[in-house]
């Protein structure tokens, strides 16, 4: 279904960009990816719900923005 691999190096780079002094444990970036996945999951669910409420078959940006506001 989805991609199998989590972008571990990319994740580390992002965190390094934001917090250069912060270090990551060995497999901590996987947990970061996990939390990221869960976040996307919640966002997508909320956007879907809002799109349903607007009787739209497509998720539109407005739905997404509203969804992000909720979360």
């Amino acid at each position, binding site marked *: 279904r989805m991609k199998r691999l989590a972008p571990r190096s990319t994740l580390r780079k992002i965190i390094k*960009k934001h917090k250069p002094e912060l270090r990551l444990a060995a497999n901590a970036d996987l947990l970061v990816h996990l939390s990221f996945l869960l976040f996307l999951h919640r966002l997508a669910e909320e956007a879907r719900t809002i799109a349903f409420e607007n009787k739209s078959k497509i998720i539109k*940006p407005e739905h997404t923005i509203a969804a992000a506001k909720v979360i």
Partner: protein
Amino acid sequence: MHCAARAAPELPAPACAAAPPPLQAPPPPCPASRRAPRAKSLEGLRPLTAMAASGTRLVRAARENVPKSGNKKNSGRSAFLKQKAAVFPEHDNDTPRVMLRRIILTQPQVSPVAPQLYKDEETEAAQSELPSKRVSSVLDMQLPDLVPEDTSVATFRMTKKRKKLSISEFERAVDKRLPQNQDRSMLDSTALARSLRMSLGSLIPPDTVEKRGLRRRPKIRKAIDMKAFEGGVEQNMLKRKAQSCLVDSQTASEIQAPSLTSDAEIVLSNTELFIHPQFDEQNQNKLSALEPQLSDSKTSAQRSKISDAAQEEARLVGLVSSVDTNEGRTQTHSEELILNHEHFGGMTHVSCKTPVKQQEAANRWSSSLPPRSPSKSLESPVTLKPKRSFSMSLREVVSRIIEDLDVSDTEEEMANTANKVEQIFREAAEHRANAGYSGHLEKQLTEKAELQITMAQDGKVKTETAALEEEGIAEGDVEHQGSPEAEQEIAKDVGAASLVRHSDAISSSEKNGVKPLEEAVEQADELEDQAIALELDGLEEEPTEDGAEDPESAEVSMRTPTFVRAAAYKPLLSTPHHVKPAAPKLSAPRPAKPVAPKSSLQPLQAKPVPKSSGTSRRKPREPEIASRLIKGIFRHYAKMPVARDAFKVVEKCSERYFKQLSNDLEAYTRHAGRRTVEMADLELLMRRQGLVTDKMPINVLIEDYFPMEYRKLLIPVAVCGNKVIPSK
């Protein structure tokens, strides 16, 4: 003459000497009995036996001795015996036999016997009440008599010791001691043993015994006696390891008691050890007392929106940060972070403190000066407690606050703190909101946005727009291409008048051709950074207009408008990303940004100019999440077709999410005193997000979302061969 009469008196004398001290019965009937034939002696002894409470054995021994000695005893002892018998008829039974034994065993011991007799008589006279004692002493006497044949000195010593004992025992008897205890004491028959018993047996009654014994003496001696007692106790401690603990503790307590009473400082120090939490709470109470007094009017509106605990935290943060601003800005932020950690970690901790603080606020605030020294001294011991390490840092700052407050003019401080409290309060609130995604934050932020909007309406809009325009022009066309459209959209979405104004201003100044959104995305990232710089630049002018009293407060005030303005501008400038969740959400990551860029404001001011030309420079700084990855994940979860624009929103959201994530992780890690993010930190993060609960452990989530190879890495898996993967 004694020699001649030795035979007679020797037998009875030792018997009398031995028997009387314990028995108090120089047998008056003895001579009579001895004179008389055996039957008479036996008869004479019978009443004695009957009268003697405990001495059957001795009585028998006496009876045995009587027939042995026979006639020898009769003449010389009569006088003594009669006297003794008259005075102490009870113990006559023992004396004949004992006397006989003595005569047999200790024949040469006339001199010791004679004085013993007298002494024994005296003791007998004194101890009319204690037959049992004498019995036991007779036993003791008999034993040493039996064992050492020549130990007259030994017996003498024993008797002497017994005499000493008997005197003290008499005292105790006078003091209404039970005979049992006295027996105990008698049996030991050593001063050390006595002290032993005193200390070990039961500390309270022996103490009372000693105290009773000491009653006669002036009370001053008590200290000395206590010390001597303690010295004896120490000796006993060496002897008896088993009970040493009790003795140690009690002696220590005893030792401490006088020292404490004597030394006020020691009392203080002792109390400090106990009062650590109280003092800290008191300090916090002072702070909380300060804060409510000062910032009630200003922050009431904001406070109403936030829970009480959060408010207390904010107050603490405010005061803490106020002090730190005096020392250094970074500290405040760390304190905020720490407080946020505290908030994250356990609200209960603070909430428990807060009511206490409030209670003690009034009392302690007045006495801020005296506790300063203990608070200072508290700092060091305060730091020692690991559990409270985090809250202790708070206390240290609190104590510093108190010091500063006491040192400097309180009014000025209070005024400053009021301002700082406000602004830092907002910041703290926003910090919290970041972590918790609470709806409150949105309200607050909308509030702040409104406030900012109102402020903008006052006339700062022009300055900002002017700055923006300048910056925009300097930056170039490419970046703001998509902005006008998005700005309008954003304006509609947000519905803020000022924003519309801004968007109009910007769009008017920077209208350009339309570009593909993808490029705009990249540029929007650049835009964001520049926008921050712009906002900061523009905002720098604001605090001066705000009229902050101190440069520090100005900085603080700069902060709050900074990120709020960032929130306002972010939707405008980050348009290509299709407006991530609105101003409230945008402002959430802002607090983190202002801190860093704040210090580097001036370099940032210079940067936008070269930045505009070098677009390539930014790319290596911004690692992008694979967009297709995000798209795929989102589509999978949404189960519906997703518009490209919506996907941009998702992209922006994810970026901001990562920023928040990194902030939170850093906060957690710092709170744990570590420099490396660990699994526990991440689990805590997810727990706070509500992803991990008691019902939903993290391992379940791992299994749900991760492929096998990742699961193996994260969860120890046991495989055949008694191996666990990953091996620890």
